[in-house]
């Protein structure tokens, strides 16, 4: 079994990014990513040798995020959302970039408003490229249900973009 430090080096950036995306707040993302790795450290030794460490870490992070959302909801705050710091850049030209950024903004808004399972399944699949089976493990459902969550998320995103011009795809029919 590789030393825990290696696991932190390899997976922390991605898990942290995932939580920044899910929480949209830097401080919360840091707290949750720390907690993810502290929990992982405690359980690491009992992890089977052939375990998918990456999927396991995503599952811990997802669980922590879910609990976090629940406790947040209980708090009933009406403060304005402060976006997590950090911008993503894209090498498109100014106009293409504007359209991309606009579409992207709309998509991110829709994703943020999705029910927990659809949102998590969508982010894990589309942003972090996890297999449906692994997503199912994070969400405590079957791979098929995970696939269905992503499908419903995509449908909602698609509808939220009604009447909006989309960037030209590089993929041709």
């Amino acid at each position: 079994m590789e030393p825990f430090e290696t696991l932190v080096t390899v997976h922390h950036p991605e898990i942290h990014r995932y939580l920044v995306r899910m929480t949209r707040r830097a401080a919360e993302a840091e707290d949750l990513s720390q907690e993810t790795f502290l929990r992982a450290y405690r359980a690491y030794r009992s992890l089977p040798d052939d375990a998918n460490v990456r999927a396991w870490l995503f599952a811990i992070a997802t669980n922590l995020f879910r609990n976090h959302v629940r406790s947040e909801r209980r708090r009933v705050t009406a403060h304005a959302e402060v976006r997590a710091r950090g911008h993503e850049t894209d090498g498109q030209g100014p106009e293409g970039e504007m359209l991309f950024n606009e579409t992207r903004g709309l998509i991110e808004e829709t994703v943020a408003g999705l029910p927990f399972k659809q949102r998590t399944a969508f982010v894990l699949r589309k942003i972090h490229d996890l297999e449906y089976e692994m997503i199912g493990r994070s969400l405590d459902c079957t791979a098929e249900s995970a696939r269905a969550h992503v499908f419903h998320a995509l449908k909602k995103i698609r509808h939220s973009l009604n009447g909006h011009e989309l960037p030209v795809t590089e993929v041709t029919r």
Partner: protein
Amino acid sequence: MTSKHPQCLAIEADLVATAAGEATPEAADRVRAHVDGCRPCAEELGRYRAIEDVVGRIRTARRAEADEPRVRERLAARLADLRRRLMTYGVFPSPLGHILLARTEDGVSLVQYLGSGRDPRDCRLGRAMGPDAIEDDAALEAFYRELLAYLEGRRTHLEWPLDLRLARSEFHRDVLRVTAGIPYGAVRSYAGIACDIGKPTAARAVAQALRWNPLPIVVPCHRVVGSSGALVGYAGDKLGLKAQLLAVEGVSTAPGTRVPRDAMYVTLPGENFYCLPSCAWIPTAEQPQRLVFFGSRGRAEAAGLVPCGDCRPDLHPLAS
């Protein structure tokens, strides 16, 4: 939203999967055949592809992670702290009932008798491990094997790195350090330990410290008895265990739970010889409470001592 043709509705899932590149070849064929004749669905496929494309670019876009190194640094600090605090434990069967063994990064930190139970939270010091303790028998297995050999008399030393963090005070730690130095097969008095740590009147406090010994057996508090030889107490009410442990080391206890001091070989800490209890210097010893008693010549010699040249215990051994 306009209502869709049933065929278009039926193909929707395949269409989304096709846009994502996840459709089976058959599904992709169905979609291709459908969109060839259905302009709205062809447009729909184009929009889903556009969404996939934007999402793909979100995925691959480089995020400016200015905070990541600092976040990592703070995580490393918390992990180091957790590591220092964390105890790993195992519960094992033994001739003395279930035994809890725990360790930290620094060494073995806890040995506790659980009796017939197996739950470490059932004993007070077990709870002192904290909520983060991790059960991992494999991490303690080597210590367990040595302990078992010791309890079965096949081993006379447990040279373990020890972590005394569960001792309640620096005074308790001092008591444990002196107690750890009592040789195998020997007994000393509480008052003797008190003298050794420079607090000759603290015999009762020494007894209390040993009552809370987090490392019985390895810090051999069973080798500490009353000045009269009485066993006094052990791990609460486990006087029988004390007699049992002493018996393994060759120290017999009389039926009245008393160590027969008058029938044991004697030395003083720091001396290199051992004597018969009748040796002339013993009544004149400056601090008689510091005397150390051995159950047999073998044990005394195993502790590096030679027979006294005056009383010659080698020529006149005690009746065993």
